[in-house]
């Protein structure tokens, strides 16, 4: 299926997803499967540092294939999130459409310190 024409959609569902970055490897935050017939409008992506002592660095990438495959394009690269703080990486002023066979991934510099919440509209 092709991604929908967004002036003529049948369904818009508000959704959120969370991921704990338990390793320093790239981790999928949101993935739109190939031929899903959907497009995701990502309204917000917030990274929280749950470590109370040290800042930790985060990179958020846009991937050219689903499940963080293909080519990564940096949305933010090695940005520091202070201890017990949150960083708004995407908000409604800088929303991103996630088309079919695309994904967003996060890479933490330190395992188990960072959590990501993404809020999006699933449009079909």
């Amino acid at each position, binding site marked *: 299926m092709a991604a929908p024409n967004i002036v003529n959609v049948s369904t818009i569902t508000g959704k959120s997803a969370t991921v704990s970055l338990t390793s320093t490897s790239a981790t999928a935050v949101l993935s739109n499967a190939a031929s899903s017939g959907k497009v995701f409008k990502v309204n917000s992506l917030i990274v929280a540092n749950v470590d109370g002592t040290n*800042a930790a660095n985060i990179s958020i990438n846009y991937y050219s294939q689903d499940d963080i495959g293909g080519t990564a394009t940096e949305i933010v690269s090695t940005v*520091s999130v202070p*201890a017990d*703080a949150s*960083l*708004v990486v995407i*908000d409604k002023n800088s929303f991103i459409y996630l088309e079919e066979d695309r994904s967003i991934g996060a890479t933490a510099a330190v395992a188990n310190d960072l959590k990501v919440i993404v809020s999006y509209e699933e449009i079909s």
Partner: protein
Amino acid sequence: MPQRSWPGSLITKTPVTPGGAFESNAASGVWTLDEALQWTGKDLWPTGGKTAQCLFIGGQSSGDSADILTVTVSTTGNAISWTDLTGDTSSPSGCGSATRALWASMSGDTNLIQYVDYSSDGTTATFGDLVQADGVGSAALSTSTRGCFAAGDDSSARDVISYVTISSTGNATDFGDLTISRYYMTGMASATRGLWCGGEAGGNPTTRVDYITIASTGNAIDFGGVDPSTYGAAGSANTTRGIYAGGSTSNTPDETNKVQYITIATLGNFADFGDLTEAVKFGVGQGSDTRSLRAGGRLADDSRVATIDYVTIASTGDSTDFGDMTNDRSSLAAACAVQGNL
């Protein structure tokens, strides 16, 4: 991204100013990328992986310098203040490991050893006591496990060497004695051998260089000499080579800008390396396995300087400007998380 309704003060009721650029500095709140960028530009955004590295501790200025400065050895740039000191902070001697910095022997003739961990928020604490109050003019050196303090002037020159195990707090233990009592000497070490260089003995500068095998205990042994006889020089070392820089060649103002070096594994005399950017005594030396830094000191007119310069240890040559400390200071201590012999 425009600044909008995600203030950094969202969690607390009052606006938050980030505590600094080190990873342990506080900045609770919900921040936009724009805010993070602004604070980063002011060098106040806590940054993951950024910890204090090469420390310049206390020392004398117009009053005592009651703080610890830090620089990153692999780059150049001005030192920034990391944390405050308490109590007597003039004329300390410093050493440490990759994780912990120690300093002791201040002009108040105290035997107190203090420490700070590089990964901490900068909180200093008591480590223990020296074997005796070394007082002003002592020197220190260390490997990754053991720190040694020696000499100093507590109304008379000292010859006592004491040591601590850096990873565990506690009082120092007697190590042995120097070959001659003195003060204002310079400590440096490879991974196995510690050198106590120059200093003032019997009221005059000396060429004497002693060495100890750090992992054992025992009296120091004659190693060779510096040339000319000097006291109040700065020094550091990597695993193979020691650097001895500046100092004063007499009790009248006669500061030298001479930089000397030695291969620590081989007994002998120091050889000419190059020149400092200025002739100073009572500066301090520290560095990495590739660079030796000299910070601060006093000029021949007795004024203090804030300058930092460096040499590349592996190749002889003159010093290059590194940056400045936050204020003029002399008789300070230094310790480095990437100390060249670790």
